[in-house]
């Protein structure tokens, strides 16, 4: 029945997905029977449409599991039909219509539900075009669709759900990643991930987590929660808990896609643009973060000609309507920092004074010790290693980063620049014991070897 299934979402969604997300109203993508309706393009289009269909079905049924199952049914129908008949004029409308019919079928078969008759009637009443020629305009009313997608995002990232549940739900219900793929990306057994999703959906239903856009007094916090979830997904692509290597590119792709969806839904939000730009600038450097031998490459040593020009341009374009302002939020400021880095023609030309000042601002916004460490590094490069070292030592004394290897690693680098090589060597060795991943360990070993060579030359 399925060809390929959504288990193998196409990796290159750019043209179709990009245009579809820029206009949530859903411009016609195909034009009648089309050789482009092959299995690959069908998988890509259905993957891009997934969240819209789930969002609409969620509004109509109030049941996330049912909405997902019915959407899955519709995707399978598309995978069987579109490669033969070509892409429909309005894929959103096609999928939504089929999904609703399948939801009605599923309700009819479900013996346990007490509310199924009421729900079925509501669905049937909603089915303005349940015949063979669905009223696609009514099905894809742009304002309603934008609203439903936002509701779905806020639902999945509700603070009453734990961070792991928020991530899993967002990847499943919004991004449409199959449960086994999510389990693989987070290195947990499939039943564990399935259980996590079931529990989260049960809490939504039993605890009464609402499917609506939060009130004005909540929206800023709730939007931050959505952005945090998307950024966690992005960072998990780099296995942030484990190091710099890009281990799960599919998570980065999905996070970028979610960022673009959000930007399409909330074009006026500077924080949304900031997050998208931050991810674009970071991901643009993905090919240069680790060398052929698997050793971490510092930003200053990366080959800038190999950075992804398209992503850099996308980041710039996202920031353009949202200039940095005194009230800018943490993602907008982080995007600016990344922008200053990537806009420098070479490492030496980096405007460290600007970066130090931006980190200072970010520190006031977040009070994060990691940001404080980055601030110290930037100050060292702007005002000299002495100034930076004083900040690092102050931070280390505060104890909030105890055991975090980048503290001794940063100290080591500053001591090396100051010519205090013995102290630098000791600090590099301390850092090595705490470095979490192979690329970082390899990098630190290289620094230790270099200093040992200098020491033996000096003494011999």
């Amino acid at each position, binding site marked *: 029945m399925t060809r390929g299934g959504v288990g193998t979402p196409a990796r290159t969604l750019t043209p179709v997905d990009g245009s579809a997300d820029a206009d949530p109203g859903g411009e016609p993508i195909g034009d009648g029977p089309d050789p482009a309706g092959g299995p690959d393009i069908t998988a890509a289009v259905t993957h891009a449409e997934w969240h819209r269909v789930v969002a609409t079905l969620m509004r109509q049924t109030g049941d996330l599991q049912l909405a997902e199952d019915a959407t899955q049914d519709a995707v399978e129908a598309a995978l069987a039909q579109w490669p033969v008949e070509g892409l429909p004029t309005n894929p959103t409308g096609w999928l939504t219509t089929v999904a609703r019919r399948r939801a009605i079928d599923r309700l009819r078969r479900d013996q346990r539900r007490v509310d199924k008759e009421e729900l079925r009637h509501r669905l049937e009443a909603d089915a303005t075009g349940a015949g063979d020629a669905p009223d696609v305009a009514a099905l894809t009313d742009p304002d309603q669709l934008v609203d439903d997608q936002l509701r779905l995002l806020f639902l999945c990232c*509700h603070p*009453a759900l734990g961070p792991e549940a928020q991530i899993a739900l967002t990847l499943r219900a919004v991004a449409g990643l199959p449960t086994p793929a999510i389990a693989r990306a987070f290195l947990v057994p499939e039943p564990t991930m399935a259980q996590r999703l079931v529990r989260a959906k049960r809490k939504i239903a*039993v*605890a*009464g*987590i*609402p499917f*609506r856009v*939060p009130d004005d007094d*909540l929206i800023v916090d709730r939007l931050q929660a959505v952005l945090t979830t998307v950024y966690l997904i992005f960072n998990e692509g780099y296995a942030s808990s484990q190091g710099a290597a890009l281990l799960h590119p599919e998570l980065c792709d999905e996070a970028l896609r979610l960022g673009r969806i959000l930007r399409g839904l909330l074009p006026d939000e500077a924080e949304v643009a900031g997050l998208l730009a931050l991810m674009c600038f970071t991901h643009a450097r993905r090919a240069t973060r680790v060398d052929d031998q698997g050793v971490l490459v510092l930003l200053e040593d990366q080959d800038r000609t190999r950075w992804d020009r398209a992503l850099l341009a996308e980041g710039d374009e996202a920031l353009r309507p949202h200039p940095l302002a005194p009230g800018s939020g943490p993602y907008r400021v982080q995007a600016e920092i990344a922008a200053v880095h990537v806009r420098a023609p070479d490492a030496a030309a980096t405007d460290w004074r600007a970066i130090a000042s931006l980190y200072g601002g970010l520190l006031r916004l977040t009070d994060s010790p990691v940001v404080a460490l980055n601030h110290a590094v930037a100050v060292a490069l702007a005002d000299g290693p002495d100034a930076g070292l004083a900040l690092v030592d102050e931070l280390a004394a505060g104890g909030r980063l105890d055991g975090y290897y980048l503290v001794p690693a940063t100290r080591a680098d500053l001591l090396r620049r100051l010519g205090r090589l013995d102290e630098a060597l000791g600090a590099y060795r301390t850092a090595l014991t705490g470095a979490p991943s192979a690329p970082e360990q390899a990098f630190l070993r290289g620094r230790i070897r270099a200093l040992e060579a200098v020491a033996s030359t000096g003494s011999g």
Partner: protein
Amino acid sequence: MKYMLLIYTDWDEGPAVGSPEQQAEHEAYLTYTRDLAATGKLLAGDALQGTDVATTVSVRGGTTITTDGPFAETKEVLGGYYIIDVDDLDEAIAWAARIPGATWGKIEVRPVMDIPDM
């Protein structure tokens, strides 16, 4: 939907007995309860005496066992509750956040089970 808002507080953290702060908190509870009742969403609510006067009861093998003290020795104890009927969890959270004890204790928000014929 019905929710129970359980007010957990550590008595050591709160305003001292007889202090002006305690009087102010008492007033704040009265205002809060009045506001909540005025919306028609308040079903029940009470403050509880401390766990120092609690008695724990269990029945094993037909015998009632009565012991002095609370079921669990914890620093944060149930000091009171409200049962409210509101639209959804967001509304329940909003009312929980307005409980005076939320600023120094914690409010647990629990959906009430809907059992027919009970």
